[in-house]
């Protein structure tokens, strides 16, 4: 298919991942004490790109950007919420899934980025339940198909109305010749533990499954007649709220709008600065350390709110990574650098560790965990450059560990007066930020080297110079000033010369060594199977199912099994 760049319907040049509840077009948040309700009510004419209508609560990236924003805001602005109810704001339809016309007209890169972001958002729903004790109940009224059911699958409890016509379905295969791309198959088997032959029937039955059978097959948790639905929803919300150990009467902080300045070759945030060398296909992301020591108390942290350095940096970094992913497709390498004092970063980590049971400190660490995972899952070569004046310590050391390669300068720069580069580890590097495979980045790094992990633990809190860091295996190479510029230039030029596809494949394979989790399986299978199918003529060819959808004409398949 023609991979023609499409036009954003708002006339903008870049896809913007920042959202503002006052301008939501697709979601409504309602609060009733400790229960929040998130209503999906997609504005049909509110598509992110031109050329399709979002009928029947179908969604595109724009809808999901708002969803991700709402979920993040719930965590920071409404800590008093103990249970989230997810439901449709439209009669007779829950959600028809990803918009097919949008998918059919999407470039491959758009499809991949869309599915990836959607998956990350679904995972954050599960993370809120698992780590913030704020479960989600999904109330399905009307048709709930494809991505709609995948959204429901992210909830802890699915209630389906038993009105004789409301169904749950994964119709991707029979209808579109693709797969449920946002974890549907994996969650059906691994989370819901649906028997595999039942799952086979379910995933090949376009109209889906309703009523009692949906419960018997574990596709939903309960079916309830319409007349009792609201009572049951209330009861379940109370039950789940009772189980949550979140304290009552918490007051949230405001996630104030990100301050961003876009220029031709740069984006300036405040704690993050991004610059693009488009000719060399490099994006450089500079992370700035804190300007002042951490506050004395948790209450002070709360009053700093969104300006509290770790939170501000996490939000800005998240936005920067998403912006590069979606809007800078030709960038081959993301180079991470940092500026600041490592000791200060460690002081903030210590502060967060000390206050780890405070709701805000917990949410900030969980946000960092998700941002770091987002970096792990970014299909660009990731490089950390550790130079004099940098502050890759504690939480920021995770960036070095997340990189495919890291380079550290030995000693001072010729003529420079900054102190030699140093990195430092903190307790936080040993479990607070697991990767999608469930391991810390250090564990993933030293899969076969238990002594190396122990050695790393012994140097917690110590500022490590380049030679020591290399010896401990914390950076790839340490070079002195004589070799530094050439080695880095040659590496970056080489990297940009390789096939982008094979790099994406290799890097993803190497980043996630060790065990699988449901999360790692979801992303791996999206990448391996769905993205394979997304390239095949049976779905995206001129006569393929995705292209022919909606025309009434039947797809023509290449019948050879591969």
């Amino acid at each position, binding site marked *: 298919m023609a991979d023609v760049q499409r036009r954003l319907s708002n006339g903008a040049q870049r896809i913007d991942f920042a959202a503002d509840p006052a301008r939501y077009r697709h979601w409504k948040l309602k609060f009733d004490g400790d229960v929040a309700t998130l209503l999906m009510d997609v504005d049909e004419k509110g598509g992110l790109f031109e050329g399709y209508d979002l009928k029947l609560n179908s969604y595109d990236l724009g809808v999901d950007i708002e969803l991700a924003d709402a979920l993040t805001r719930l965590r920071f602005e409404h800590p008093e919420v103990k249970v989230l109810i997810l439901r449709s704001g439209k009669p007779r339809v829950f959600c028809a899934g990803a918009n097919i016309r949008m998918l059919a007209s999407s470039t491959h890169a758009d499809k991949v980025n869309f599915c990836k972001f959607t998956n990350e958002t679904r995972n954050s729903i599960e993370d809120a339940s698992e780590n913030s004790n704020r479960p989600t109940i999904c109330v399905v009224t009307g048709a709930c198909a494809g991505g709609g059911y995948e959204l429901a699958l992210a909830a802890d409890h699915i209630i389906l109305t*038993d*009105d*004789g*016509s409301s169904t749950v379905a994964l119709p991707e295969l*029979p209808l579109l010749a693709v797969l449920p791309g946002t974890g549907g198959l994996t969650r059906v088997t691994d989370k819901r533990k649906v028997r595999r032959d039942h799952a086979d029937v379910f995933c090949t*039955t*376009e*109209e889906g499954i309703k009523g009692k059978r949906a419960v018997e097959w574990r596709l939903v948790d309960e079916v309830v*007649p*319409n*007349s009792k639905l609201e009572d049951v929803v209330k009861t379940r919300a109370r039950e789940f709220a009772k189980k949550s150990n979140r304290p009552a009467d918490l007051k949230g902080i405001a996630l104030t709008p990100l301050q961003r300045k876009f220029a031709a070759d740069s984006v300036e945030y405040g704690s993050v600065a991004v610059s693009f060398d488009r000719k060399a296909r490099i994006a450089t992301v500079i992370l700035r350390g804190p300007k002042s020591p951490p506050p004395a108390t948790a209450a002070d942290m709360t009053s700093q709110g969104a300006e509290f350095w770790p939170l501000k940096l996490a939000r800005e970094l998240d936005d920067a990574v998403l912006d590069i992913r979606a809007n800078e497709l030709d960038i081959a390498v993301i180079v991470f650098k940092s500026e600041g004092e490592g000791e200060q970063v460690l002081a903030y980590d210590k502060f967060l560790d000390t206050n780890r049971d405070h709701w805000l400190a917990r949410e900030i660490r969980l946000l960092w965990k998700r941002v770091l995972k987002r970096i792990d899952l970014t299909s660009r070569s990731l490089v950390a450059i550790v130079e004099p004046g940098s502050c890759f310590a504690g939480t920021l050391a995770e960036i070095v560990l997340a990189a495919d390669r890291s380079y550290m300068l030995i000693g001072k720069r010729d003529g420079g007066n900054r102190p030699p580069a140093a990195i430092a580890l903190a307790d936080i590097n040993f479990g607070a930020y697991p990767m999608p495979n469930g391991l810390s980045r250090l564990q993933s790094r030293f899969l076969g080297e238990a002594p190396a992990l122990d050695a790393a633990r012994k140097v917690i809190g110590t500022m490590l110079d380049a030679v020591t860091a290399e010896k401990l295996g914390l950076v790839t190479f340490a070079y002195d000033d004589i070799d530094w510029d050439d080695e880095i230039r040659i590496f970056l030029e080489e990297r940009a010369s390789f096939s982008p596809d094979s790099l994406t494949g290799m890097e993803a394979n190497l980043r996630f060594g060790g065990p699988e989790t449901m999360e790692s399986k979801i992303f791996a299978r999206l990448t391996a199977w769905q993205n394979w199918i997304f390239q095949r003529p049976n779905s995206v060819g001129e006569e393929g199912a995705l292209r022919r*959808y*909606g*025309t*009434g*004409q*039947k797809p023509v398949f290449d019948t050879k099994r591969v």
Partner: protein
Amino acid sequence: MEIMNVDYSTRIPNNVGLTEDARVLKALETWHPGYLDWWRDMGPEGFQESLVYLRTAVSVDPKGWAKFDYVRMPEYRWGILLAPAEANRKVPFGQHYGEPAWQEVPGEHRAMLRRLVVIQGDTEPASVEQQRHLGKTAPSLYDMRNLFQVNVEEGRHLWAMVYLLQKYFGRDGREESEGLLSRRSGSTDKPRMLGAFNEETPDWLSFFMFTFFTDRDGKMQLESLAQSGFDPLSRTCRFMLTEEAHHMFVGETGIGRTIQRTCEAMQAAGVPDPNDIERVRKLGVIDLPTIQKKLNLHYSLSLDLFGSEVSTNAANAFNAGLKGRFQETKIEDDHRLENSTYPVLKFVDGKIKRVDEPALTALNMRLRDDYTGDCGKGVERWNKIIEKTGVQARLELPHVAFHRQIGEFRDIHATPHGELLDAASWQKRKDEFLPSKADGDFIAALMKPVSELGKFAGWISPPKVGIDNKPGDFEYVKIAA
């Protein structure tokens, strides 16, 4: 196999050789008691023991299929009746155009076909449920008999769809057959599948409007299913159409007789202005503006039944050879529609515009246009009635953008003439266009039963001829005490 006569040797009359088809016969016999329970619970209320002068099919020969006699409705011989098979019938449209018609369900289209049958099937018992209270306010025994005839035939149409489900769709088909008996019109918990079939039919004018407009949608759907490449569905629908014609006759003449009575009363009393509602109503007849409002309501609800103007489902069903166009075989084109377009009324940039859409996806629009044409003819015949009495008034179909819940115009408000209104003006003016509560109360007040032989309620004229050519004072229903 060409069976014209109906086999009454089994408990289920049929012309499909049920005696030799033990599996399906058993399935239907298993379903039968549940059906009778449904009929007793949800069929015409208060008249189950009455003897009704009904026609029963004895042959599917177009000339001689009906036999009239008194029968208690629960004992009506519901059965399975297919129109005669056409020798060497071919799939008349879609990607399989010209291939032999299927006698068995093609696996790849099974789900879609089942859905079509279930949706059609769901409307049949729904209307019986909607109309179950009307017997108590019948304006005459003649009308009461027509109501019951319509009801038993809707029941038979349910049988027709259930036969297809039981014979061709295995266990799923049996489950769907049960579902058809368990949903209830207007129920919160188990509503019927389509919106219009969950609306009330509160009075006889609504009933006539329903049989004229909504049953005519049924006719159009049956017409397009009668074209199906799945031959058993085609034959079933062809026979159902012969029965459906009577339902529309009931609707058209019912409204016609109401109009007739209104106009005659106006002339007799010297009330020339049809908009002088108060004076007209004092005559004990239904004023023409209220009839227009009822017409507006039922026409717009029925348009919704055609689904979205641009529809992938309709395109798929056509391309698969399952659901054709109205009078498909009489249309002169390639019957594939892969490269042609059809004009569709859409709401574009705040205006109602005609836009060419691929003909395949515009099939709902096309069928709806055919429907509108069909409705228009009936409205003209009513206007002739008004004209003949000398009253100066006309009835008309409202604009397709008026009062819609489904399709292009569902988010806007428009007058019956298609002028756009904002939400506030709509709220203020909607009682001008649609029956208000007061209108409903007035009609309800007129709904006094009349069961004397040959007598009619004051708001409706007698028919020109009786059913089965019976005289005016014939006892169409022997009401059980």
